[in-house]
Structure formats: structure tokens, C-alpha cells
């Protein structure tokens, strides 16, 4: 059996050409069908993901997840969707109507639009533009705008506070994300996502593990998953920026968060786990699609696992972690990888020596950074928590 995807593509374009349409129009209609397919698949996957997340959350917390709605609770997501569709929209009095209604659509748009440049298999890539990585970074900034719009237009003091804190955190974590994304770009010498995927042998996680770690941490902070949970810390700020939303508008924020987590898994898979590559993926592109989604789902599970195991950290600890640890370490990592890559290219070192040297360099920087951070922490602790003189009642001073 020849490749399934090319088979379907040729069949549809033959039908369209048979109807007498020009070549470019046939390609255009194929593109429309392809993009609608990707968007629908995203939505369907999110429905399954919500159920998986709730079941796993239940099991990790030593309880059953949803198990009433259908066998093993698999119809729970459908029940939730039907409920959300039939809830009433309540706008608070004095809210700015335009911004209030656009914000959830914009939040969903910013996550969906990232899926336009993903390579799913060897020649199955939608928009393979030369500046793929830059496009991803630019579109990701729309989500932050949507949060600010939601917080400001709700006419609610606490929503505005929550939105401001969220935006401060999100823009802070953009920088280590972008800098650690520069490392795969440097290793592949291109910003095209399909070139980055095909140039990974072995996978980038073995050549640049520190960049993968920094990208993973900052992406989890971008999504808002614990331990960087404070965007939805209900005990602190009611519900943050989406306090005043109800019904499907809130549903859009909720689905956008799950889809963002899944998209971060896809980005990790493309940049560090080799995208669609795997055994026999070149011969049969449909296997490439399976490998891609499989790796994405694996990262999604790892992020869920971390979220369900760690407590929340405070915002000043979070921002300290970013500005004092992640940004300097990611800069030093970038400098070291750039120097090592260029020097080894100059002397044309063999591939396996290159991989080993890069791996050791990354581990060296990680260990050095953690040691220095620990020393600084101990010094600070010694100053802050030294025993202070305490008043003792007379007669007990000898103790």
C-alpha cells in the first residue's frame, strides 16, 4: 500500500481537476480542507485529553476519576460540552462589550494558529515558511494580549489584578523560552521547522538537554500549569482574569489552556524529540503522523504528571527563578553551544564526537549552575535565618 496521505491528496485533486478547476484553485481548496481538518482534529483531541487528564489526576491522587458518565466515564467530556453550550452568557455591568467578547476567541486563536507550521510527516507540512520559529514566537504573544483584554474589560478589580500578575509572569517567561528555542535553530542552521526535524540525528534532547530542560520549564510557566499555577489560584484571586466569564466564553479559555498544553508537547516533540522521525517513517508518511502525535502525547502526560505532583510556588519565587536563574543559564548555554558548534564545524569533527562533546558541555553548565545557585541560596539563608537573640525570663538564663 502506498502512502495513505498522498493517496488521498491525489484522489481529491484529481476530482477537482476533473471538474475543470485550474491547478492553483485545486491547491487552494486542498489547503482549506487541510486546515479545517487540522483544527477539527485539535478540538476532538482536546475532548479526549480532558478525560485523560481527569482520570490520571484521580489515579495519582488515589481516587477514581470520573466514572459515572458511561463506562470508565468516557462520556464525561461530552456531558461537559453540552452543559457549557447551554449556559447563559452573563456580562458584568459596565464591561467593555467589544473587548469582553473578543478575548476568549483571541485566546483560542493564538493557540490554534501555531498548528499551521507543524510538520506532520515527511512531506506533509502545511505552511513550511522560512521563518517558522519566528512565527511561533510571534503568534504566542497573542495569548498574553487576550488575557490582558479579559482582565481589563471585566470591570472587576480582582480580575485586573489577576490579569496584571499573569501578564508579568508570562512575559518574563517568554525570554528563556525564546533563547532556548535558539539552540535547535543554531544546531540545524535554519528556522524552517521541517529542516529542524530532519536535521536531528540523534534527537536534539541528547545533543542539547539543557536547552530542552529550560524550554520545558518556561513552556510550563507559559501554559500556566503547576507549579506555576498562580494564574488560576482560586484561593488567592477568586478565578483571576476569567472571573466574570460564563458559558462558552469560559469554555474557550478552558479549552485553550488544554490545547496550549498539547501544543507545548508538540513543540517539544518537534524541536527536541525529532518530530515525526522514527523507524520506517520516511517510507510510510502515515507512520510519521503517528510518531508525532505519540511523542506529543507523551510530553503532555509528563507535564500532567509534574503538575499533579508539585505544589504551587509564589509569584516572587517564580520571578526570581526566571530572572536570576533561567535567563543567565540560558544565555550561557547559548554562548557555549554557539562556540562549540562553530569551532567543531571549522575543524570538521566526526558526528559522534560532536554529540558527546555537546552533551558533556550541557551537563557541565547545568551542574555548575545548580552548584552556584545552591551556594548563593546557602549564603542568603545564613544571613536571613541566623538565630536572633531571644528574651529569656530571669532564672532560666543558664538553659
Amino acid at each position, binding site marked *: 500500500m502506498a502512502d495513505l496521505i498522498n493517496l488521498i491528496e491525489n484522489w481529491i485533486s484529481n476530482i477537482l481537476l476533473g471538474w475543470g478547476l485550474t491547478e492553483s484553485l485545486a491547491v487552494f481548496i486542498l*489547503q482549506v480542507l487541510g486546515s479545517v481538518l487540522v483544527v477539527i482534529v485539535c478540538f476532538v483531541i482536546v475532548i479526549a485529553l480532558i478525560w485523560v487528564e481527569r482520570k490520571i489526576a484521580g489515579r495519582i491522587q488515589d481516587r477514581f476519576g470520573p466514572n459515572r458518565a458511561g463506562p470508565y466515564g468516557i462520556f464525561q467530556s461530552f456531558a461537559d460540552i453540552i452543559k457549557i453550550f447551554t449556559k447563559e*452568557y452573563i456580562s458584568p455591568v459596565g464591561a467593555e462589550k467589544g473587548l469582553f467578547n473578543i478575548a476568549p476567541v483571541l485566546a483560542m*486563536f493564538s493557540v490554534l494558529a501555531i498548528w499551521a507550521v507543524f510538520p506532520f510527516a515527511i512531506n506533509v507540512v502545511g505552511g513550511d515558511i522560512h521563518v517558522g520559529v519566528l512565527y511561533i514566537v510571534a503568534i504566542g504573544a497573542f495569548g498574553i494580549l487576550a488575557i490582558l483584554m479579559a482582565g481589563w474589560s471585566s*470591570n472587576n478589580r480582582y480580575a485586573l489584578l489577576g490579569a496584571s500578575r499573569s501578564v508579568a509572569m508570562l512575559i518574563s517567561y517568554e*525570554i528563556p523560552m525564546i533563547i532556548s528555542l535558539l539552540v535547535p535553530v543554531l544546531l540545524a542552521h535554519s*528556522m524552517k521547522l521541517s529542516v529542524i526535524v530532519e536535521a536531528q540525528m540523534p534527537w536534539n534532547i541528547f545533543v542539547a538537554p539543557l536547552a530542552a530542560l529550560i524550554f520545558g520549564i518556561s513552556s510550563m510557566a507559559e501554559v500556566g500549569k503547576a507549579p506555576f499555577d498562580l494564574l488560576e489560584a482560586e484561593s488567592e484571586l477568586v478565578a483571576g482574569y476569567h472571573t466574570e466569564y460564563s458559558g462558552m466564553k469560559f469554555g*474557550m479559555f478552558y479549552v485553550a489552556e488544554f490545547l496550549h498544553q498539547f501544543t507545548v508537547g508538540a513543540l517539544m516533540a518537534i524541536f527536541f524529540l525529532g518530530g515525526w522521525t522514527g523507524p520506517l517513517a520516511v517510507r510510510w508518511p502515515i507512520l510519521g503522523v503517528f510518531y508525532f502525535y505519540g511523542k506529543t502525547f507523551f510530553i503532555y502526560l509528563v507535564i500532567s504528571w509534574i503538575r499533579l505532583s508539585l505544589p504551587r510556588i509564589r509569584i516572587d519565587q517564580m520571578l526570581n527563578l526566571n530572572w536570576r536563574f533561567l535567563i543567565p543559564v540560558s544565555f550561557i548555554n*547559548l554562548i557555549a553551544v*554557539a562556540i562549540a558548534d562553530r569551532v567543531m564545524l571549522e575543524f570538521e569533527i566526526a558526528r559522534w564526537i560532536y554529540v558527546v562533546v555537546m552533551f558533556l558541555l550541557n551537563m557541565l553548565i547545568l551542574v555548575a549552575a545548580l552548584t552556584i545557585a545552591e551556594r548563593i541560596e546557602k549564603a542568603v539563608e545564613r544571613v536571613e535565618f541566623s538565630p536572633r537573640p531571644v528574651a529569656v525570663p530571669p532564672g532560666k538564663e543558664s538553659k
Partner: protein
Amino acid sequence: MLTNWVYIGVFLIVAVVVPLVAVLIPVFIAPKKPSTRKEEIYECGIETKGNIRIQFKSQYYIYALIFLIFDIETIFLFPWAVALGNLPLFAVVEGVIFIVILFAGLVYAMRKGVLAWS
């Protein structure tokens, strides 16, 4: 090459239309019974008093400013990272000097204490 950008344009339109349709469906099938009690601003059940627009904390502005500087720096680093294979060996040193200058700015900001959440 242009067909790639056409795909992205089509995808952006689809990515706006599908959530918009999803948000507009409840307008037809959900109940609409507004009342003053329901439309009050939520403040854990207490009545809202005072100005809604609170005073903006200046710390947020400082974070945005420093983010802006580093964001522009990364924009400059992208072409350098892509072209590093074709440039002479000295280009690495030039790039590293650029990063170090801005890194010195970050260290200065950290020592001044502006990056701590007050």
C-alpha cells in the same frame, strides 16, 4: 513558496472562524434572563465600593521594559544563529560580545534590585 503563506492565511481565518462559531452557538440555544443581581461585579459576595480602576503597580512597567530589551535582543540573535554555519569563525566572537554586553545590563539591573517583586 507563496503557497505556504496562502496556507497560513487560510489557517488563520479558519482559526478565527471556528472559535467564533463555537462562541456564537449558545447565543441561539442558551437562555437569556438578565437581572441586576446576576450582572453585579463579583467580589466574593460583598458589594463593590470605590474605584474599579486601581492604581497600577509600577513594578509591572519595569518588568515590561526589561522584557522589551531582551526580546529585541533575541530578534537580532535569530539571523545570527541561522547563518552561523556560513560565516567566518570570528562571527562567533562577535555574537558572543553582543550577548555579553546585554548580559552585563541584566547583571546591573539585578544588582540594583529592580527585578525583585516588591
